[in-house]
């Protein structure tokens, strides 16, 4: 799917004046409490140092020898600087802790897409229905928030299309994150559908058990419908398109049977053959191909 839109974003809610639906009140007050405490501490410490240095400077001006003044002053300025930087970095750290408490929009959808990208191309992972449901729930929440903001704007009598106030920006954020989630979900489902289509060409119309388990119900339905569509096309064209995947070098090839297929298999020239395990046969290429693609025979090239 085209992810080329320039409005990619991962928004952090707290920067906008609208109330985040996800951050609970408890978390918010916990942040305020701890950061307030720390800031107050810094503030009083600074005041104390400042007062002390004022006293020291006064005594200098009055000509009194304050033996500890000079190094103390130096020490004060040094400590003040250090403390300033330190407190700044501590403030940022506290903000970072807050970030982690706060909910990042679009992260779960991003995880879904990453799951697709991390696997090998064409290989399906089991359908992650929990994460899928969570993203869908996030979408409906965004929609509720969006509607409530738009209603608020309409109640205030503002024109929804053109006003640029806080509610509008909040609504825009919700809309954009909804659209982003939609794109991620569609990409997930669409790419899996493409992998299923390629499975049809590689393996055939019947899927083995291990692969069936990885598909969700809707995907199994899609596979059946798609294979029916392909079969009807092939019957209209009167050609089987799933054989002959490789350019032919010889009309007949030598094969060795890997798994017991049984006997009495009817080949294209109406002869019956007995395919016992480890037996070697000289077959027509088109007959052998269907067994080779399923892994039941191998071609002897030596």
């Amino acid at each position, binding site marked *: 799917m085209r992810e080329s839109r320039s409005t990619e974003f991962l928004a952090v809610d707290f920067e906008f004046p609208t109330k985040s639906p996800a951050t609970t009140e408890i978390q918010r007050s916990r942040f305020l409490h701890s950061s307030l405490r720390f800031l107050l501490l810094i503030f009083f410490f600074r005041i104390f140092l400042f007062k002390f240095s004022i006293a020291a400077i006064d005594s200098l001006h009055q000509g009194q020898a304050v033996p500890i003044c000079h190094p103390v002053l130096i020490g004060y300025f040094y400590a003040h600087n250090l403390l300033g930087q330190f407190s700044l970095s501590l403030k940022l750290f506290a903000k970072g802790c807050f970030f982690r408490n706060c909910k990042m929009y679009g992260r779960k959808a991003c995880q879904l897409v990453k799951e697709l990208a991390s696997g090998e191309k064409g290989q399906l992972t089991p359908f992650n229905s929990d994460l899928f449901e969570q993203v869908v729930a996030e979408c409906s929440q965004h929609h509720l928030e969006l509607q409530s903001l738009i209603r608020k704007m309409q109640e205030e009598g503002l024109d929804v299309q053109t006003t640029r106030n806080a509610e509008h920006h909040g609504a825009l954020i919700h809309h954009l994150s*909804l659209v982003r989630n939609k794109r991620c979900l569609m990409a997930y489902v669409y790419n899996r559908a493409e992998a299923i*289509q390629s499975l049809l060409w590689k393996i055939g119309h019947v899927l083995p058990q291990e692969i069936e388990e990885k598909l969700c119900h809707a995907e199994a339905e*899609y596979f059946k*419908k798609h294979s029916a569509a*392909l079969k009807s096309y092939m019957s209209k064209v009167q050609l089987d*398109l799933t054989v002959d995947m490789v350019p032919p070098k*010889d009309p007949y090839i030598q094969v060795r049977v890997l798994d017991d297929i049984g006997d009495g298999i009817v080949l294209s020239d109406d002869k019956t053959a007995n395919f016992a395990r480890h037996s070697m046969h000289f077959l027509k290429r088109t007959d052998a191909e269907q067994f080779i693609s399923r892994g039941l025979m191998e071609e002897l090239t030596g």
Partner: protein
Amino acid sequence: MASSEVEGLSLPTDDYETLLSTTDVELLKRAWRNEKAAPEILRFETDLIGRIREQIQLMEETVEEKSAAGIDPLSISLYQMDLDRAQFLLRSYLRVRIQKIEKFVFHIAKTDELWNKLSKEEKNFARRCTEDLKQHLEDSVLSKLPENYQSFQKQSVISEEDDMIPEAQLDTFVVCRSKEYLTGIQLEDGPVDDRSMLFEMEPGVLYFICYKSIKALVESGKIDLL
């Protein structure tokens, strides 16, 4: 079809090549190569495919007759080989087209120009494919999303164009060759001030060029893709 067996003959090269290039197998080979290399679907060669089918049928009957008549197995296997190779070309041509349709089914169904390039059976297949895929997307995703966001073509009701349909990338670079001297090809990419630069192609020389620039020429048959 018997042209693949005349390799040992010492005909003058010009005549031989013109003889080769007009046989149906050569034409099918060219169509197959173009279809494989092009990023989007090309026009369906209805007449060619019809003729090829008839020839394959004839060839099959001939092989059966000859093998029943007991002619030596070597020449029968040569005929059989020829038949197999022609069948492979036909099957691969149709297969490549079906896979392209599967990949870009929404875009093809939407664009008239591309829709007209399909054969009748391919159109039926494409119609069924769009319905299946649409149903699948709606069942798994779209029905669960809020109302204004349920379209599989647009991101939301506010989008101005259909931005959720994957399209073929016409900007891919392809290797091509032309048979005659061509001038006046305008390059689509390149720095903005050079965009009006006209480009010429000499016969028989390989060029690596953006597909968009030579699209019309490929369709008219003047350029071959490799």
